[in-house]
């Protein structure tokens, strides 16, 4: 790392975050689980395989259209576990509260955490609360960790993408990031966009129990779809080509991105997954996703080519081709 101090970029989920992970964090905690760099660790315990994942939430503002930091924190960890192919079971919650934070707001947040856990069929089983003096943290930060069980027949990983695989996205892009942005001080605007925060374990369960072959599952959160696809391309040593015209993006989201100069490919999603499946099973998996309540707008958006560049390309509307690089620079700090 060349930087002497932590910059906001280190939390972007993009290139700078990756360099901090690989140059500072990974060498100190080297191990087969961490080195795989999936959304969670896969732990082998005799016959049993567990998925274990953790995530911290610092979103600003705490309340936004369609949700709040509480359900976001529960859904986020559920999804990270589900993307390992696991059935999420238990979740822990760590609260860091700023002195003076209204109990009324805390109650709303905790209630939505309980609601989110109930809806997804997971239990919050342990936790911790710390309070720091006013000004030493911003309102509320939440950490959630979770454990899930990976069924015997399941083997999904970001390293499993194969040439010929079809790339499916489970719905519209960039809803969460643009929702949070639209509520920010200094940039408030009216829109009917709301967060897509949702638990995807039900959808994953349906896909994995359909008998279809699935190579990769990932939720494109911070850093957006562009960054997630780059991670998969590198992990699997493949080249991915996506089609701009096929990307599902809501009109108001697209309009906001155009207006503010954001690329929806790099904006966070909190209730979407990307699946890599062999051509033979693509239609079946797409239909399964579309039948799920969070997958109505699912679409096939691209394919894995025969090349091995580790890069992602976009076929543009006008028939041109361009690179989709990993996110460089933080488009929107504190989005989740």
């Amino acid at each position, binding site marked *: 790392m*060349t930087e002497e*101090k*932590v*910059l906001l*970029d280190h939390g972007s989920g993009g*290139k*700078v975050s990756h*360099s901090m992970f690989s140059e500072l964090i990974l060498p100190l905690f080297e191990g087969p689980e961490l080195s795989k760099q999936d959304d969670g660790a896969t732990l082998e315990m005799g016959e049993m395989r567990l998925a274990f994942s953790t995530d911290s939430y610092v979103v600003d503002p705490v309340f936004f259209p369609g949700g709040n930091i509480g359900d976001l924190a529960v859904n986020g960890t559920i999804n990270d576990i589900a993307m390992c192919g696991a059935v999420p079971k238990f979740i822990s919650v760590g609260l860091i509260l700023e002195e003076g934070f209204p109990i009324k707001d805390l109650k709303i947040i905790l209630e939505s955490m309980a609601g989110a856990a109930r809806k997804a069929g997971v239990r919050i089983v342990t936790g911790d609360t710390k309070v720091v003096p006013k000004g030493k943290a911003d309102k509320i930060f939440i950490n959630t960790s979770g454990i899930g069980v990976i069924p015997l027949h399941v083997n999904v990983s970001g390293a499993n993408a194969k040439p010929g695989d079809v790339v499916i996205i489970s719905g519209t892009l960039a809803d969460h990031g643009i929702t949070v942005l639209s509520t920010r001080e*200094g*940039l408030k605007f009216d*829109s009917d966009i709301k967060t897509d925060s949702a638990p995807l374990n039900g959808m994953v369960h349906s896909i994995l129990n359909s008998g279809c072959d699935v190579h990769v599952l990932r939720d494109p959160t911070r850093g957006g779809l562009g960054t997630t696809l780059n991670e998969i391309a590198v992990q699997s040593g493949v080249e991915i080509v996506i089609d701009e*015209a096929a990307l599902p993006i809501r*009109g*108001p989201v*697209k*309009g*906001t991105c*155009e*207006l503010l*100069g954001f*690329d929806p490919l790099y904006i966070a999603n909190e209730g979407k997954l990307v699946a890599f499946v062999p051509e033979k099973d693509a239609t079946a998996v797409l239909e399964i996703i579309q039948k799920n309540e969070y997958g109505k707008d699912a679409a096939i958006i691209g394919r894995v080519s025969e090349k091995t560049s580790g890069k992602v390309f*976009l*076929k*543009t*509307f*006008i*028939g*041109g*081709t*361009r*690179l989709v*690089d990993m996110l*460089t*620079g933080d488009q929107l700090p504190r989005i989740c």
Partner: protein
Amino acid sequence: MAMKYIEEYRDADLARDLTKRIHRVSKKKLRLMEVCGTHTMSIFRHGIRSVLPDTITLLSGPGCPVCVTAQKDIDAFVEFAKLKDVIVTTFGDLIKVPGSTSSLGKEKAEGADVRIVYSIFDAVHIARENQDKEVVFCGVGFETTIPTIAAGVLMGIEGNLKNFSVYSANKLTPPALAALMETKGVEIDGFILPGHVSVITGTHAYCGTFEKYDIPSVVSGFEPIDILKAILILIEQNEEGRPALVNAYERAVSDEGNVKAKAIMNQVFELCHATWRGIGEIPFSGMGLKKEYQAFDAALKFNMNLPDVLEPKGCECGKILMGLKTPEQCGLYKKKCTPMTPIGPCMVSSEGSCAAFYKYS
């Protein structure tokens, strides 16, 4: 939000048709320069280079305001940030641009009060809310931005804000085009003129340059169809040997431009010499605050007049801005200079040509 104006100008069939016509008409090798950074980004984002014939080379000109900001001005912004009880307000693109020793981003990490704003009006608001602090706005923009900065100064007067000032590193487009044409080694066969700037200036602002240099010039919008159309017109003019100044962005640009915006700009600002990064001083290419508004001039208020300094060794931003080199011909590109560790401003700004090359190719 109405998407009509986006979707219509991204029509795949129309784009294919224009591309076919470009391939059919183009015979001579031509070097066409897009002057505006937003054009550069649109060209890369839509993969326009990848559909053009080999005969056409697109050059990215000095049209990204951050990229043409002189090192001494960046240093001044950093110095403001170091001052006690000063809030520096800036557009986000400037945050990472390295000055001689530091950047606004680094100063922010050290504890300086540097705030990103989306408009000067946010800066005026911050000044109103923080009357015990000085608020400096980093004025970096072309004709598109300068009228809003002028309006911000007028708001400051109206609100009797004594703690608000502007450092003007603003610049004008037509003098830069003329300076380019006068530069030895510069070979340009046509200009794709900036759409946003032209909304304010009007097409007439380019008459002087066009008449003097007889160079094909087309005012263009930013959607792929707009840009392909502008390229086709420039090729046709070159092939037929009939240079013309054409407005191909009629839905937004008039001959006279935005008269009201120009009036506000000229009420508050006046022409001055300006230093362009890599190009040097271009006479009467900048806009400084008029005498009666000097109470709002941050450079005078804080006596900030730094000497210009040499750009980092090996950095070819200046030559790239003039179309004399491509980013790939710079020894630092993708090696020492990346968006994570930028050395020159063309790699920092989201509209810089090096950043575009890095991100999209």
